[in-house]
């Protein structure tokens, strides 16, 4: 089994995440899709590290996880604030700013 399959899986996950951002309405789910994209990248990084015979890819994955966690903290705070205001987590409802 070559590492290439991991890369393909990673690309597939990334694409699923990207499409999820486009088609889901709930802000939390949209955000989860973004997290899915980040984790797909992690898979890529680790695989490339393996291919290159180094440990750097794994190290980078650590950093990405940390950043993702920080994003979760900030993102949830923002989404929660807007949910408390509007009683809805649908991102289609946040539509005052346009044109």
């Amino acid at each position: 089994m070559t590492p290439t399959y991991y890369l393909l899986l990673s690309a597939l996950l990334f694409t699923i995440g990207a499409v999820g951002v486009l088609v889901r309405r709930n802000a939390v789910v949209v955000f989860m899709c973004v997290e899915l994209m980040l984790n797909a990248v992690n898979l890529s990084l680790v695989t490339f590290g393996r291919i290159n015979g180094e440990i750097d890819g794994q190290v980078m994955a650590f950093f990405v996880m940390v950043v993702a966690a920080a994003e979760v903290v900030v993102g949830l705070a923002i989404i929660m604030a807007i949910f408390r205001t509007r009683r809805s987590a649908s991102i289609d409802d946040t539509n005052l700013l346009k044109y």
Partner: protein
Amino acid sequence: MIASSWLLVAFPALGALILLVGGRRTDAWGHLLGCATVIASFGYAVAMFVSSSLAEATDVALYSWIPVDALQVEFGLRIDPLSMTFVLLITGVGALIHVYSIGYMADDAGRRRFFGYLNLFVASMLVLVLGNSFVTLYLGWEGVGLASYLLIGWYTGRPSAATAAKKAFLMNRVGDVGLALAIFLMFSEIGSTSYAAVFAGIGDLSPAVITAIALLLLLGACGKSGQFPLQAWLPDAMEGPTPVSALIHAATMVTAGVYLVARAAPIYNLTETGRLLVTIVGAFTLLLGAIIGCAYDDIKKVLAYSTVSQIGYMMLAVGLGPFGYALGIMHLLTHGFFKAGLFLGAGSVMHGMNDEVDMRKFGGLYKRMPITFATFGLGYLALIGFPFLSGFYSKDAIIEAAFGSEGWQGWVFGGAAMLGAGITGFYMTRLVLMTFFGKERWRELKSADGREFHPHESPPVMTVPMIVLAVGSVGAGFFFALGDRLVEFLAPSVGALSEAEHTALPHALIPWLTVGLSLFGALVAWLIFGRRDVPVERPQNVSPVTRAARNDLYGNALNEALVATPGLWTTRFAVYLDNKGVDGAVNGLAAALGGSSGRLRRLQTGFVRSYALSMLGGSFLIVAALLMVRFS
């Protein structure tokens, strides 16, 4: 003396700074300071002119403006006959207009600010003509555009003033893009933008590049000088106070285009195509302006189209290359005198007539305003090229030079120039007759704000400048033409004047034919407007020519057939071209941009998901394009 020539610019610039920053504290003496700075510049220019030899161009380096590796833009001045000629005209006529404005703007609460803008205008114009590189010229170029925008829009209460100011600025921007492109092209091809380096290096470029530069410069010149197809802003610019019209039309802004072409003489000398196009633009514009001038009843609009037409003469002349650079400048100078005089005269009439501009409401004013009438009359005679007045020498020289072109060009350009002279005679005579002669139609009328008209002569602060300009209108042409004085003076800048070896028409015949045609135009105008009353209300949908022809009891069939009907159709066509063609194209472009903007902004739906979609689409396209470039 020359080393401190930056003082020329510094005086008015300082004046503008003090007046605009100083605010209301300077209200009491602001107008005096405004005049003093320009007069000081004029005095300095005269002193330089008298004391220094200008036979060679002197570059005065001031400081390094934009220094980046290969791109070195020095801020410097070039003192040579061409720039000094312009400096004298700008400061001299400018100073007279400043003095006149003291009286004209006496009742305006913002007079101090007005003088600040006027000073700014003069300073920018001086930078334009004195700069020693195309970038410095561009600086003045934009400065003039900005100051004119402020001045044209002076009467902020009027929506039409706002529109006119905006139009002037935007149409100028179209020209500016041309000029900017020309500058960038010079920089990339020659590696410098200073006159010295560009003119030294231009010969090594390929003909196509030279022509491209020349045409882009022409686009810039058209924008600033109100030449076809960018002429539409100039008549609208009449929305500003009359001294502004005089300043823009006579001494400063519109002459910038002519200056640009004359300054770039070494470039135009190398490209036949470029010159020919300048000539065509000039010839076309001079006819267009003259014909449209016949159609308006607004005294300032008529003068405005007259300016368009006269600048056309100058462009025609400079387009003739070595045959005409100096002649174009000479006409520019004489025109500076008589057109400034005419505008100030028109302003004086308006001053006495509660700011009315409709000539149909004037009439018989010569009795009420003798000085205005006399000075205006002299300006009028000079403009139509009455023998031995200023216009006669300068315009006639251009027409002769035009006839000197080779082949069909001689006939076409010479013919156009001569025909233009005839039409000029017609519309200017019409203007004078309707304003100063005939029945005193204003007696039964009231002005727009309900006051009765009490025409009166203007105060001396206004009439004195008019008298000075009238003297110039009479004598300047003779003075310049005597012994080819101006032509030889300018030779170091634009090269010696070549005389055409043969002309399409016999040499001796041209002046008299021109004068004859002018007088014929004047006669026609007198037949139509001088011998009967002019109706106060302009008939709807009927051209003045037709209506006048119909009402003319003594008019004969010949008159109708030869003058009225073709005149009607030509005028209608010219006005249509002006309103719908060019103006329409510009407005249409703006509308198209606005429309697409209005539609495109609907894409900004406010939905996060659609934004994400555009990002995903964009990134997919970028990646796909990159891979296609790589693997194709």
